[in-house]
């Protein structure tokens, strides 16, 4: 599903040049659950942003579902993104002005799903993450764990093929964290590909494979058994 080769990303500020990704090559197959680990600043989030088509690489190739997307313009990237990719962030990133229901509904609006259809699908996923009873609450009225469940719901409502999660449990206690990890595992079992960045060895154990990074390069890959 994903194949990147010799990917480079360099951040230039006035004083310094930071090589965030240095000739990185990775392959992720459809249906896989991959964890990315590594010390702070090694380029994990950068990698995820590129995989999620939020950012473009400076060099290298990125083939997504058999299409070379490294040189896509913003419009094309947005189009590809909204139909194929769901995101879960460490800091939830829900819109404060919208209710739980409306937050989850948003991706469907952007992909042009009809209103009646939207309602059905949002209710379905809210049911699945057991947050249906808070559908009319605003994010601030929820606990961290509940917010992250809403974020997961929002990520999956469009039934994306790929879910990218950047430290999804980073702001949660262990029991809430486990719940979220269980949800991701369930999704993966239903066929969704997942790439997850994490600092926690515990969480990484939910995955099939761990990619370890250092200074923008992969140093090791562990296959889980």
């Amino acid at each position, binding site marked *: 599903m994903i194949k990147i080769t010799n990917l480079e990303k360099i951040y230039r500020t006035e004083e310094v040049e930071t090589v965030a990704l240095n000739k990185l090559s990775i392959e992720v197959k459809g249906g896989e659950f991959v964890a990315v680990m590594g010390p702070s600043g090694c380029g994990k989030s950068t990698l995820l942003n590129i995989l999620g088509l939020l950012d473009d690489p400076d060099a290298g190739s990125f083939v997504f579902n058999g299409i070379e997307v490294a040189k896509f313009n913003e419009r094309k990237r*947005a*189009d590809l*993104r*909204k139909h194929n990719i769901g995101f879960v962030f460490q800091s939830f*990133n829900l819109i404060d002005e*919208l209710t739980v229901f409306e937050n989850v509904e948003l991706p469907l609006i952007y992909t042009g799903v009809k209103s009646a259809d939207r309602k059905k699908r949002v209710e379905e996923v809210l049911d699945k993450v057991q947050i249906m009873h808070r559908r009319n609450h605003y994010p601030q009225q929820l606990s961290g764990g509940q917010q992250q469940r809403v974020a997961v719901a929002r990520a999956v409502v469009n039934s994306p093929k790929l879910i990218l999660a950047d430290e999804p449990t980073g702001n949660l206690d262990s029991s809430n964290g486990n719940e979220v990890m269980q949800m991701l595992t369930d999704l993966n079992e239903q066929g969704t590909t997942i790439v997850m960045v994490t600092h926690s060895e515990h969480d990484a154990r939910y995955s099939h494979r761990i990619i370890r990074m250092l200074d923008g390069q992969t140093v090791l890959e562990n296959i889980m058994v």
Partner: protein
Amino acid sequence: MFKNYFKIAVRNLWKTKGYSFLNIAGLAIGIACAGLIFLWVEDEVTYDQYYSNNKNIYKVKNSQTYDGTTFVFDATPGPLAQSMKADIPGIKTTARTTWGNRVLFSLDDKTIYEQGLYVDSGFFSIFHFRFLKGNAANPFPQLHSLVVTSDMAEKFFGTTDIVGKTLKVNNEQDYVITAVIKDLPENASFNKVHWFSPFRIYGENNQWLQEWGNNGIITYVQTEDNTNSNSINKKLVGYVKSRNKEANSEMSIYPNSRWRLYDSFDKNGAEKEGRIRYVKLFSLIAWIILIIACINFMNLATARSEQRAREVGVRKVLGAVKSKLIFQFLAESLIMTFISALVAVVIMYFTLPAFNNLVEKHLSLNLLAPLHIISLLVIVLISGLLAGSYPAFYLSSFNPVMVLKKLKLKNGAGAGFIRKSLVVIQFSVSVILIICTVIIYQQIRHTKDRDLGFNKNNLVFMSLQGKLKDNFTPIKNELLQSGIAENASLSSSDELQYGSNSGDFSWDGKDPGKQLLVSMVFVSPEHLSTAGMKLKEGRDFYPNAAADSNNVIINETLAKAMKTKNVIGSIISWGDEGKYTVVGVVKDFIYNNVYTDPAPLIFFCNPGYANYLSIRFRPDSDIRTALSGMESIIKKYNPGYPVEYNFVDDVFDMYFKGETLVGKLAAVFAVLAIIISCLGLFGLSAFTAENRIKEIGIRKVLGASTGGLATLLSKDFIRMVFISCIIAFPIAWWVMHSWLQDFEYRVAISWWIFFGAGLLALLIALVTVSFQAVKAAIANPVKSLRME
């Protein structure tokens, strides 16, 4: 999709009530102000558009050139109307009218003066009045016919069903009412005219009108459809000269559409802008006020960008493209503007009476009128897009990766600079308006305080009705004996409008090639002393008018123009009619145009031509008792006529109506611009304080004083006001300098006005900003630091 934007917009409005209030209040004030100005503009540009055949209506203009200067006016010769209709193809109708006659009407014991016109019956084919009663095709079936407005009909009879009834005119002649017309709207000429009678009545009493060389009445023309006014004007070149060699008049027809807003001519006789200048100026100011209000919106929206950034980021991650976000933010600002417009309508309803009072009109806002509702929507659309455009492009361009990483947005350079520039624009406009207001008022004061060369206080004049002229001597004697008045006199025109003039004067040594236009006034011997004019040379007229019937007194300007050594005793000839000896020179006094130096003038000692009685009250007298004393004396000698009079100083004040209106409006605009700008500044300073709350906390912990912190937070704003002043000063100077060029008599622009305006703006800004700055500076630092 739109529902979603709407929800976010409304919740955002609600969540940030304070800023929403500032935004909506500023925009609403701006829209209301612009709305009021546009109502005024609408009234002005639709002036005289009441008649259905507007495009075919013209007025004949007469231009005369003396010594290289062309004067353009409405007075035309009597025979012109009939003759041009017969001679020139393309003219459908012509009609003569008088300038306006105040005539006494009586019915039983009701006696009222009413303003009216003597008109040719063709007048009613040119101007399509609505006839409520009577026959429009034949309005004057007999000589003493009277067409009245429904207003006047109601006043006398309480009904409009009065065709065939009679009213007595000037206590002499019965006139038969032959038609009643609907009252004219306020913005139509003839609006103050309440009756019409056949021109023949006037013509018969004024035989001099028969001559081509005398200009005394107005001529209106209705052209055939598809007739070009140029073709008619070509035929009019030399038209009067071909009838009368002596005449110095060139005629042309002048379209109805320009009567109100132009009708102003330069020294070469070319049309220049009249009232349209103010229409344009005020429209421009209306838009500027709107822009100032929109700037508030842009500034507060971009200042709040950090709060909105995460939303933008999340939306982008979820697949929103830039154009969708732009659309969303524009929709938001349109919703905001729409709410402001609703508030503005309420504001307009409440302020319209005061505004009407100010501009002396009866404007009304009619939300059912398509023009008004469409204009309002256009204003909403334009200001909504204007206000929303910058925030929309700015906010939608955020990079989601940066935003979601909680990187501090590089809010500094770009956005900050634009925000500051916008504030600078707001304050520049405010400073310019303050300066203009002050200078306009100074100019009005300056002219009002001008030494007129006569004493306008305690002086009244009235037109000579009934037996007033015949009984002048006993009236005067009684006024003086009773101690009411100091003096009284007769004159052909009132003190401020010395109307008639002639180019037909000559004297020894006059360059025969140059004609000089000289004003003529016919007075009783007491006139100069009654008015309080001062003699420079020679003597005043003798009390016995007959003794001075061949003598004249001239003004200083004429004396200078004559260029003779001994003015006193020199002879002035008036055409072939007579020779007059100059016995006195009166010190220059101001008449007709308060802004220029007086034109040459001759006083003839001939009370026979008088139209006005002037009375000077004693300076120490109580005006109310003096007036009632005067009234009873005049009633005694002139029974059957109501006593109507005017104070010269009141009439004088009326001359400043136009300028006073401009001054008042400039003041209102200045105040509004400042209020709107301060609303914006208030919001902006709150944000600055909020954004720097952590810095303030740390500084405070490290020992900074409240005063020091307040200064730190205010410094930026003060600098902006300074820059505004630097931009505003030259612009204001240039605007006022060119405005003042219109007035020959004008104030010098003094530097302290600029200094004062700058200081005022600075103070206002300081008060606005320091409120937030002090609030932030005295807050408990522990709280703000723990928030992170």
